[in-house]
């Protein structure tokens, strides 16, 4: 039975998600322990509000030369949520265990960059229909390796 959302479980996790701008629907979601996936989804979905807020706070003038990495979206007791937005407003969100101290801002940033590159590769695929869910083995592998590295 579906359990409601509580803030209790251990999260040795990383989730990486990509949103397409218009509807903000998920293009790709992965989480390592699958048993608490629902909670992840809620968290990530909610964090979109913060992403929106951050983007609008940045103002229009800075759009061009702005930093794509948004930094920590919000911390909770158990995990940290980081965000990243491309110039075309595709959003990347990552959730990591807050006890994982090895992950500094720089590591997160480089992980996002990696994700972004892979995403660009997918978009370059002429057979990929923009807006579809991502089903790419290469992308999966990349995410897997990233998660392995983290956990």
């Amino acid at each position: 039975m579906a359990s409601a959302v509580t803030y209790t479980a251990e999260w040795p996790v990383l989730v990486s998600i990509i949103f397409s701008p218009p509807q903000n629907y998920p293009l790709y979601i992965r989480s390592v322990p699958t048993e608490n996936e629902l909670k992840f989804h809620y968290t990530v979905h909610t964090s979109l509000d913060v992403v929106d807020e951050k983007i609008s706070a940045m103002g229009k003038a800075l759009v061009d030369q702005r930093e794509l990495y948004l930094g920590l979206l919000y911390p909770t007791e158990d995990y940290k949520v980081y965000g990243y937005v491309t110039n075309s407003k595709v959003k990347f969100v990552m959730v990591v265990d807050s006890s994982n101290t090895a992950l500094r801002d720089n590591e997160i940033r480089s992980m996002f960059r990696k994700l972004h590159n892979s995403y660009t590769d997918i978009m370059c695929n002429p057979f990929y229909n923009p807006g579809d869910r991502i089903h790419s083995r290469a992308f999966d592998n990349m995410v897997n390796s990233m998660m392995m590295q983290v956990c």
Partner: protein
Amino acid sequence: FSWKLVTPWNVRCYVKSICVHMRDPNNQLHIIKNLKIAVNNIITHPPQPGAIRKLLNDVVSVSQPAEGLVANVITAGDYDLNISATTPWFESYRECFLQSMPASDHEFLNHYVACMLVVSSSEPEPVEQFLKLSQEQHRIQHSSEYLYPKWFIPNTLKYYVLLHDVSTGEEQRADSIYEEMKQRYGTQGCYLLKINSRVSNRGMDEQIPDPWSQYLQKNTIQNQDCYEDCPYTVISNKNTDHLISDGLDSEIKDGLSNNFKTHPLQLDHPSGSLDSTDYVKATASLQDSKKSNSGTPHGACLTLTDHDRIRQFIQEFTFRGLLPHIEKTIRQLNDQLISRKGLSRSLFSATKKWFSGSKVPEKSINELKNTSGLLYPPEAPELQIRKMADLCFLVQHYELAYSCYHTAKKDFLNDQAMLYAAGALEMAAVSAFLQPGAPRPYPAHYMETAIQTYRDICKNMVLAERCVLLSAEILKSQSKYSEAAALLIRLTSEDSDLRSALLLEQAAHCFINMKSPMVRKFAFHMILAGHRFSKAGQKKHALRCYCQAMQVYKGKGWSLAEDHINFTIGRQSFTLRQLDNAVSAFRHILINDSKQPPAQQGAFLREYLYVYKNVTQLSPDGPLPQLPLPYINSSATRVFFGHDRRPAEGEKQAATHVSLDQEYDSESSQQWKELEEQVVSVINKGIIPSNFQPTQFCLNRYSDNSRFPLAVIEEPVTVEVSFRNPLKVPLLLTDLSLLWKFQPKDFNAKHDGETKELGACDDDMIGAEAIAEFLINSEETKVARLKLFPHQTGELHILGVVYNLGTVQGAVTLDGIDPSIGLQTGKFVSNGLSVRGRQDLEIQGPRLNNTKEEKTSIKYGPDRRLDPIITEEMPLLEVFFINFPTGLLCGEIRKAYVEFVNVSKCPLTALKVVSKHPEFFTFGGNTAVLTPLSPSASENCSAYKTVVTDPTSVRTALLSSASSVDFGVGTGGQPEVIHVPLPDAVLLPGASVQLPMWLRGPDEEGVHEINFLFYYESIKRHSKMCHRVLRHTAVICTSRSLHIRATVCRSNALEDEEGRGDSMLMFVDVENINTSETGVKEFHIVQVSSNSKHWKLQKSVKISEDKDTKLASRERAKLCFKAVRCKNSEGRFCPEYENYTFADIVFGNEQIISSASPCADFFFQSLSSEFKRTHVQSHAHASQRAAKQSFDETVRLIQQCSEVDLNVVVLWKAYVVEDNKQLILEGQHHVALNTVGKEAFSFPQKQELPEMVLLKFFRPENTPVPARPTPEQLSNLIKTSLHYPESFNHSFHQKSLCLVPVTLLLSNCSQAVVDVMIDLRHKTTSPEALEIHGSFTWLGQTQYKLQLKSQEVYSLQLKACFVHTGVYNLGTPRVFAKLADQVTLFETSQQNSMPALIIINNI
């Protein structure tokens, strides 16, 4: 008779509207607006925590959003959300919560200020009573036994009220008592209140609204626990209070303060049993309900003037008693403070400095105390400030209040009295906010600190909550939503679900109300709130929260979250008995491609079924519910008419016909359609009737479904439904059957019957077959075939399927039995949960795209595949093939039998068969013997009709003749349609007929699929269905056998009896090209037959001595025949009557009569197919020819002379060893010879396709060269031959010149007059030629000009002169010919004859 007196209504109504003036300590006039007074029983007890919890719960659950409430639509980004702007449940919760706050020691806001003593005028000693009551009050306030009612200041204001019931009491007495009171307490301190001027319950003509109605309910609940021990005095306490509320929203303020201060007061008439006290104040409704049986309206005895009096009384009390008292108290407190200030300030600081050393331990004690709560004595000076502040606050003097609170706060903080400090901070913040004009910004940090202190240091969640509620309200009013949300969220904790739920919901509303609404946060917190609500047992609220959150998550791809919400909604709706909502929510989880794990899906499904079951149980007679599972791919639905195919019985092989197992093949279905059209057009003499509808046995998405299909009564209609299970758990459908509607109709009587729906019961019309169990495994697509048996004519509409949906018992081992055993036996254990429901089959037709309108819009045509018309009975044919081969040699003839069985109750007639390959088979011509041998008897016998011949007659032809008409071919029309010679042309019901059928292996090697379409009709003509058809596809594999090439050439010999030049030589090359190792040993040519209208074979020119021509693999034989023109060839003039002459040249000792079946049948069929082929080719040239009509005439004439129409049939036997058994196979090959000198083949050589044609980008010049007859053709006009002695003896000694007479025979082969020129002069082209041949000379005329008529033979006498012995070639004359009447010269030298050698001998 009960007396009721209630003040609250008056209080609220009255005092509110009046501005009350009051003087503050500095003698400034201060205006109080909307002063509210709360009147309470003197004996109240602090509410128990459990009771409060229950109360709050009830308050929240009672308050639900109004049904018809129009929700606000908030548009945020892409979201349009319907959210109710108001949350009345939260407001009532807040009120109730604040009201139920117990009075505490550190603040005085809900301490009593004044006391009202009420005595009835009917009391025997009212004045005594007043005294008693006054003492009582004093006792309560000052003795230590009553802890609870807390008093503001020690000397409470006492106000004496004499209550006079006008209806019973004497007015004078009351007045006199009042006078006495006035003297005693002063006019300011007492009041005479007259009520009940009207007799109770009588004369209800004056309708007065019940002033209590809106308060009673709430207060009943509130006071339930405190009324038990209140048979006491009538002492009411008044506590003027004004609680904080945001100034913006007076609505809330009202609501907020109402509850707090109102109280119904009921005076009961004294009953003797109560000890001397007279007036019992009891809570309203409980007592009331005991007495008045049916909720009599309160205040029924009060007239409007009474209401006014009550109002006046309150006003009087406020102005005369209360406010002056408060004013006085404030002044007193102020004076105290001022007097203390100078002293205490310095003193305090001095003592602090002084005793700093010794203060330390004290402080630590204080700190210790802090944790439990430092307590000041009630009269401590620090509390006096607070008291004054509270009093100022109550009379709305916020400025003064703020400064007092501020001071108090400092003091408390200095003393580390954290609880007090927090209280002061809280109130300071509130009064700062409430100050008119807002001179200072709202100190939010005060609140923060207060909340933190309450929560963390004092561990008092109730106070913290109050603080948060206030603060959040204030922040919201200042549009600081995110701060408010943060505050609210911070207070959620595990200890109270209800509070957490409400606060989370408020937080969610804060998020959505922000300037840029945070929709997702809203949704998330709504879900959290919903979860908390459901934990707190507030199901309706929980459901509402989830529903609101759903708006955000719906259809955005967050499937996991969506499923979760839907599931919860489903559950909550179910527990609230909103079954329809529950069903739709669960349905949603199941249909949307769920990404949940199988276990979860199984749980969803079970829950869904359970809910559904409940729904259906509620309305058992309702229509069957539409089930969402499994999916039906309705466009993949197939409908099949007719019985299932019977399996082959031994040697018998049933016609393949059509079955549902076959895949649809558009190419073949097109072929069948064409075949049917052909046969129908033949039946209808070349015209296809307009209402012709090709028979479709199986309707699917590709077939043409625009017309109603026809089904025959008593023949089953099978519907194949394609189910797909989207879930990862298996689904079990039980009792699966079709749902249909039937309209009986007699198509002959033409009257409409009534419509019958869903006739599962009336089997007399339609019988339905049900599938007991149908299991669809996880994510499987499976088809179910369901049958209907129509028993009446009419219109059938298949609507859908009906079934019980259930699940399979999971892999749980029950009683040690492995469930897989159950599965193997095909019995699935349903876990008992199943729902009966239906699913409709709705099929969308093809998109229309014909007219412009249809092209621009999207329109779909009808699809009628599920609406068959049941027609009356028709015959039904079954066809079986016996000894039907699967493999043949090319050209092999095999005899098989066909059995026709009429399985219906109707006679059958006009049986025909049509095929694209009519040359493949024959039933024998008219001449064939129609009484067939039984198949077994004819085994291993020759398929041919044979006659034993005289061996001496070898090499000479045996003649016979036959007309093509006899064989049903050559008459034009459709050669593909073959009539089946039934004995009486009718097949009676149940009868069967076996007919022989000869097959000939197609000439082409490979696998051949040959389609037979059997056509038949009923004897009776029906309006709906004229004919029926049966299909059969035979698959034949052929292997190579012989290859035959034949040429004819004109024979030069003119030794014909008549001396005419009409004889030809035919050369036949036979090659064994069989390459297969299996068995075929050798081929024997047994007979060569010719058939032609004009020619016949005469004899075989002996080449080899072999009697039989045997051909082993890859061997080749050459046969040579002489052909002559038939005698009856004058029959040329009537070409329609095509009589063929058959000439057989037999090599063995048995003549196969080639003019009989089956040899002739196949011959004619090959002829007609040949004809067809050439016809098509000639058609292509037809246009060119027409243009050159005149010119053509001559060409044609010329061409004709080289044309022959000789057809050769080579009959052979093949010796095959198969399974150590020798078999003799027979066969025949056909060669059609058309042109002299041109090679013809038994099987047309495949033309190699030009590999690639360069594309030409210019238009080809279309100026065809005039069709010139080729020189070759022209050279055939005249046939020449020289007649001379082969050797000539001449004595050159005697005579040096040798003269030899030579006859030159010229015969005109053409039908026209030909001019011939003969030139005898030597053509001295090469000197060598002269030497070789020697020289001779023609004597006499060297050039002749002749004219030869058609077919004329002319002999010309020539003389040759030789001078030496030797061998000479006489063939030197050159012959030129041209058509006589043509000017144009096609003068060509005629074919030079072979060297004509003559030997000249010298004797």
